[in-house]
């Protein structure tokens, strides 16, 4: 066999190997979504993943070990104020390997952020990613700090619910 052929053969083998490595890298994306959007959508319609502050306070007062509160704000905000017994997993690190086992255990994880928006987004992200037993604390740390801790009262109107309409529609004289 002449040398040019050898070279060509070597080149082809190297290319194939590289291609293999490349494709295997591509398919083994560990961050792919494990739950399809349609499935999550019907789950969202059927069940409620929010935890009201009243319920949360009960859980904390009873020291219910089934629940784990997770603060997804940054460490400074966490140090400044956090719900009793909560641990801190800042949003940017939420998918890191070090927390995988924590998210996979049996406890019910209650996510919270300053309000409920970021926590809800994190809830969707983690659920899409395949984790289960997650809840979102309504009103988040702000409501907890301003109402639950300082006044120890809940307004019964449920203002901690982000989706509650907080104004009087009749006041808007629509131009249409």
């Amino acid at each position, binding site marked *: 066999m002449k040398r040019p052929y050898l070279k060509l053969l070597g080149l082809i083998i190297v290319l194939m190997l590289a291609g293999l490595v490349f494709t295997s890298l591509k398919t083994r994306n560990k961050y792919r979504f494990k739950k399809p959007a349609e499935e999550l959508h019907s789950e969202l319609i059927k069940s409620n993943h929010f935890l009201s502050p009243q319920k949360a306070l009960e859980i904390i007062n009873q020291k219910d070990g089934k629940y784990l509160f997770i603060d997804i704000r*940054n460490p*400074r905000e966490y140090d400044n104020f956090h719900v009793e017994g909560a641990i801190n997993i*800042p949003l*940017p690190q939420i998918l890191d390997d070090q927390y995988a086992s924590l998210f996979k255990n049996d406890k019910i994880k209650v996510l919270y952020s300053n309000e409920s928006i970021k926590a809800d987004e994190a809830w969707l992200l983690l659920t899409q990613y395949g984790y289960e037993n997650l809840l979102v604390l309504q009103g988040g740390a702000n409501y907890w700090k301003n109402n639950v801790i300082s006044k120890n009262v809940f307004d019964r109107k449920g203002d901690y619910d982000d989706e509650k309409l907080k104004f009087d529609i009749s006041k808007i004289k629509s131009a249409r």
Partner: protein
Amino acid sequence: MGPLIPLNDISEEINLLVAFLIGIGFGFSLEQAGFSSSRKLAGMFYGYDTTVLKVFFTAAITAMIGLTLFNELGMIDMSIVYVNDYFVRSAIIGGIIMGAGFIIGGFCPGTSACAAAIGKIDAMYFLLGSLIGIFIFGQTFPIWEELYMADHMGPVKISDTLGVKDGVMVLIVIIVATLMFWLGEKAEKRFKREDITKEI
């Protein structure tokens, strides 16, 4: 993925430390480029020394190419990188005043700090002057407020204005810059002032 600090919630102290380190690099490069000499800077306007042109455009193009490649490799999110807000009138009038200050004083703020660091007394006075200038602006701000806020166009990119892709715009800037480098070196030969260039 970059930019690192805004995306990773890094503490104020580290941010300021990074600022200090980047500043060292900035000052070092400016001084090495010879920007600590006012006559070298002024040479730009008389053609005997076009270092300013060369350094300025080489630096801008290097960063530009780097950002384009980083963006392509997914290493930086260009949507969060700061693009200067464009206020038409204040940018032009401010630029004209700065141009006058440049030819009269021989420095710009960055280079004057750098020159003051190696003991140029004129640079120290220039620095003092710019503090006074800023103070005057602050005191008379109500007069300029309208001008300062007029014609806000937002963070516009030149590529959007000309309607070309960012990559094409980079190429255009590079071609223009290389032509200017060539002209600059021609000018240096034509307006040669051995007496000055030897001294600085």
